[in-house]
């Protein structure tokens, strides 16, 4: 590998690692949908670099075919250096912008701040993209080989980012990536041909600036700016509040806060007695958002009476008249509230499932004494695992499976989706949970109540669908208990007995909880304590249980999407419905704002912005290139391009840009389930897909040298990808499901094997560039711009498509894109012989 290629590899690695780390930083300081939008738009830097490349091309008079193959190193070095300089500056500046997404509806200044975000974050991506684009399009003949380095570098960058986050918080990890970018710049600078005096001074200035920035960073490390509206910010305003422990991993940053004013008892009954006062607690925050608490425990469960005064205790009181020896599985155990509840009710054995090793470690070590050695008890088994995968693959059966207020860590680490996938609340997940219940056992799922009701009704519909699929009638197997703040759904494989129902209802009414649904409920019985002007629960539950046309009509007419999520469309949190928006605006005017499901709208806004800006960025190089043609420059290529050919170029690179990202997005979301860890899924898919497609690109380069025709290679590669993803669309989930119980290493190998046939994804793009270099070289920057913009548009488009039509549809769409590319490649004319 030569220095230039090594430099290209490092730039590619650094820019991808930077992207992953930036998302992580934004998840801590802000909210995931905004993080996603801001970074998507900044990534349009890749599209914009095409415009700059076109402008640079305009200045050049030598036709591509006659150029010195290794020319243009100066520009590459310049932009690599610019990237290395912009990366730390851009991050530090971005953390100074006082942007508050909540205010954006009212405060015009926030739009300015948002624009500042875009601009500030855009620069490093733009510089890196220009450097990479220069490397590729200035040597179109070498494109497949160079593209292989680019892809391999990106893949390594993704893996590196995750590895860095395993050992360090996001800020030092960024410093390391900045060092990587500087390494790339130094390599590029060293590679420059003998320089004049001025050139030498410029190089010295660049190196000095990089060194200066690094020293500055080391001396004043910039910290992630927390929005004042994050839970952690609020907690730190409490009296005597301080962070007593902080851990960091790719899954998120965990903060533990001490303050006498921290009290976590979601939906505690209004009439909970003095004896049920809360023991001291530490607040637990994941990515600066409230995530439960660590409660003081000395082994005496009688001091935990408060736990009985929340709806989460419902399953245990079902059996209060006929106590049974229980085995309990707490999914998403976190600070341990569910575990304490189980112990208080005499559970013989508790399985606590928690994904974040940092949380487990905090309880086992830092807060071991405070939590009474909770996670080291002999009657407790702690499993570091993702809840769904654990329940799916575990050999055990339980009396209670407790899933309380758990929001799985959405796989947003790489901006995967504004509306993240979640495999805990799907119909198939509920089936799996139910299959792991002992006879008479209960699945208990608790969520926050929102008005108008959403989450709890979707849970109800999901459980009903799961029971029906198991051939069981839902009407006598479901109970819904609600307070003003939380709702707990109980699901049983058998019918609830009269004694159980009597015990439950007695317990609930003592606490002023409404039993919103139970088998045999009479009108008005579910709306007695927390009274709604209109009993939406009764109406919704009746419609859902009626099934058939009535249920369908209800789903169609309700203001929020309540259709159960499935493993193919794992979007429990997707409640938004377009048809509700005009009605909302018409009926309540500006007051609609609190009711909007922002995640979805921001996704749409991201797509709209990306499409609009992308169109501009794609048009700009064309305008520049046309001016060049009319200004009478010597023809840069054998003949000027025609409109029809330009259309073909446009479609080809658009299809590839969309297709690649569609595959990437869909695979990440599919493999999150299979690898049972969002971070591994992202690392494996990003790194794996990029690496194997890098291999594909390298292989294509070798085939070309052996004399294979480019058109055929590109055509077959694209067809191969189309066929593979079409098969994956229908068969991947089913094929992977039986392997879920395999150990992680084996599952990772399977995931790699899944991606191996997709090595062909690395071929059509560089082969297309090479072809373009031979026939219409002036369009090379344009092709780069199209690909860059299409990639950004594709991420939000893929998510919208998945929300609307499922992940299989995204894979099929990707297949169609590659099909189009294959068709276009098939029509490539055999090019004139390029330079040897």
């Amino acid at each position, binding site marked *: 590998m030569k220095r230039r290629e090594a430099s290209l590899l490092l730039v590619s690695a650094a820019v991808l690692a930077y992207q992953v780390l930036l998302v992580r930083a934004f998840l801590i300081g802000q909210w995931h949908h905004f993080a996603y939008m801001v970074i998507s738009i900044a990534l349009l830097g890749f599209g914009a670099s095409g415009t700059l490349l076109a402008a640079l091309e305009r200045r050049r008079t030598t036709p591509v075919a006659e150029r010195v193959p290794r020319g243009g190193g100066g520009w590459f070095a310049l932009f690599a250096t610019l990237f290395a300089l912009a990366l730390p500056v851009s991050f530090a500046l971005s953390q100074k912008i006082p942007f508050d997404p909540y205010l954006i509806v009212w405060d015009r200044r926030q739009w300015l701040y948002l624009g500042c975000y875009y601009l500030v974050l855009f620069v490093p991506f733009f510089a890196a993209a220009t450097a990479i684009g220069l490397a590729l399009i200035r040597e179109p003949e070498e494109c497949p080989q160079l593209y292989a380095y680019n892809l391999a570098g990106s893949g390594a960058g993704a893996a590196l980012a995750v590895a860095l986050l395993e050992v360090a918080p996001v800020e030092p990890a960024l410093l390391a990536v900045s060092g990587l970018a500087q390494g790339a710049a130094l390599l590029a600078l060293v590679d420059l041909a003998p320089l004049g005096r001025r050139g030498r001074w410029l190089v010295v200035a660049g190196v000095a600036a990089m060194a200066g920035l690094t020293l500055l960073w080391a001396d004043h490390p910039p910290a992630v700016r927390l929005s004042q509206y994050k839970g952690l910010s609020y907690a730190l305003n409490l009296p005597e509040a301080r962070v007593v422990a902080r851990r960091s991993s790719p899954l998120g940053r965990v903060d533990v806060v001490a303050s006498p004013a921290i009290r976590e008892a979601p939906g505690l009954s*209004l009439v909970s007695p003095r004896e049920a006062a809360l023991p001291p607690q530490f607040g637990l925050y994941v990515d600066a958002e409230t995530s439960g608490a660590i409660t003081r425990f000395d082994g005496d469960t009688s001091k935990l009476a408060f736990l009985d005064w929340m709806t989460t205790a419902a399953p245990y009181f079902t059996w209060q008249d006929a106590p049974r020896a229980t085995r309990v599985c707490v999914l998403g155990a976190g600070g341990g509230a569910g575990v304490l509840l189980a112990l208080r009710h005499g559970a013989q054995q508790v399985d606590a499932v928690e994904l974040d090793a940092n949380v487990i470690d905090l309880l086992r070590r830092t807060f071991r004494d405070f939590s009474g050695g909770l996670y080291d008890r002999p009657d407790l088994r702690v499993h570091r695992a993702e809840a769904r995968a654990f329940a799916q693959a575990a050999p055990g059966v339980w009396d209670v499976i407790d899933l309380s207020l758990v929001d799985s860590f959405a796989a947003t680490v790489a901006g995967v989706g504004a509306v993240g996938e979640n495999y805990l609340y799907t119909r198939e997940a509920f089936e799996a949970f139910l299959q792991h219940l002992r006879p008479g056992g209960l699945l208990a799922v608790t969520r926050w109540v929102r008005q108008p009701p959403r989450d709890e009704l979707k849970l109800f519909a999901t459980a009903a669908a799961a029971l029906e699929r198991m051939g069981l009638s839902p009407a006598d197997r479901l109970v819904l208990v609600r307070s003003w703040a939380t709702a707990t759904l109980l699901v049983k494989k058998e019918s609830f007995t009269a004694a159980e129902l009597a015990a439950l209802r007695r317990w609930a009414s003592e606490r002023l909880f409404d039993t919103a649904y139970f088998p045999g409920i009479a009108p008005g019985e579910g709306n007695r304590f927390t009274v709604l002007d209109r009993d939406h629960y009764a109406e919704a539950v009746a419609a859902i249980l009626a099934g058939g046309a009535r249920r369908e009509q209800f789903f169609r007419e309700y203001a929020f999407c309540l259709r159960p999520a499935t493993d193919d469309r794992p979007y429990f949190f997707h409640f938004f419905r377009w048809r509700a928006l005009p009605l909302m605006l018409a009926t*309540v005017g500006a007051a609609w704002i609190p009711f909007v499901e922002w995640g979805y709208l921001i996704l749409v806004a991201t797509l709209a912005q990306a499409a609009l800006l992308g169109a501009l960025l794609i048009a700009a190089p064309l305008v520049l290139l046309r001016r060049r043609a009319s200004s009478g420059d010597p023809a840069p290529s054998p003949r000027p391009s025609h409109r029809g050919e330009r259309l073909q170029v446009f479609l080809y690179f658009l299809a590839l840009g969309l297709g690649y990202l569609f595959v990437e997005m869909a695979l990440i979301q599919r493999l999150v389930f299979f690898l049972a860890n969002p971070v591994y899924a992202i690392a494996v898919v990003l790194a794996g897909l990029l690496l194997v497609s890098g291999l594909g690109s390298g292989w294509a380069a070798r085939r070309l040298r052996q004399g294979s025709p480019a058109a055929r290679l590109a055509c077959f590669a694209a067809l191969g990808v189309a066929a593979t993803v079409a098969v994956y669309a229908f068969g991947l989930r089913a094929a992977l499901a039986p392997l879920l119980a395999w150990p992680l290493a084996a599952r990772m190998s399977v995931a790699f094997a899944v991606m191996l046939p997709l090595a062909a994804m690395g071929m059509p793009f560089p082969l297309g560039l090479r072809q373009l270099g031979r026939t219409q070289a002036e369009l090379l920057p344009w092709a780069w711009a199209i690909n860059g913009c299409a990639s950004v548009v594709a991420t939000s488009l893929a998510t919208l498509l998945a929300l609307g039509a499922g992940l299989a549809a995204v894979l099929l769409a990707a297949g169609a894109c590659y099909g189009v590319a294959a068709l276009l490649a098939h029509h490539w004319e055999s090019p004139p012989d390029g330079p040897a």
Partner: protein
Amino acid sequence: MRGPGSSIRKKSSSRVVVPVCFLLAAAALLFAQADEETFRKRREEMVRTQITSLRWTSSDAVRDARVLKAMRQTPRHRFVPQEQVPNAYEDRPLPIGYGQTISQPYIVAKMTELLEPKKEQRTLEIGTGSGYQAAVLSPLVAEVYTIEIIEPLGTAARKRLAALGYKNVEVRVGDGYYGWPEKAPFDCIVVTAAANHIPPPLVEQLKAGGRMVIPVGNPFQVQTLVLVTKGSKGPRDIQVRSLMPVAFVPLVGGAKKN
């Protein structure tokens, strides 16, 4: 050494300065009055367009004349940070720092109305914020006790309320979880800072027949008002109502096709 001319100059300069100062002061007063007049008009408009407006269904619009009067009287612009003064009367919540907000005017009015405040009553507020809600309650009840947990906010609110002459409002900086036992029981309680549960001690400090209101949602998105009423048949005689403050009902009960 001062020459004879200096005193003359001094006199002549004072002859100029004094009237100029007077004029300036008068102008400032006029402007201030004009300003106050503008703000008064904006308050009128706020009440007309946001609080009693027909866009709310009849049960949602605020009707209580005393509450409307209090909303008209209370200078909301004095309870927001300087840079938010131009927005003070707009139909939106406003940030007051420390991750806290003051609710949009309609929500404040609705919460106040739901409390059914009476002149002889005693009110407790948890979460003073800038003091606006306490100021609105002040003319409607006998005493307002308000607790703010964030020290700088509480101190600023205490000064502000005193400066504006709200004599029946007492501000305490501290943890409101245990209420204000020395002054309990209360006829009305507002809990603007409920996190994940309503503190049971507050329910205990509610008088029989008393009313408690809790806005639910994040600072910028109040979605529901929870109204707790305590009956006279003992501590468990409690009813909770969950109210959607907007006319959302047509949307959820099977939307009509237009």
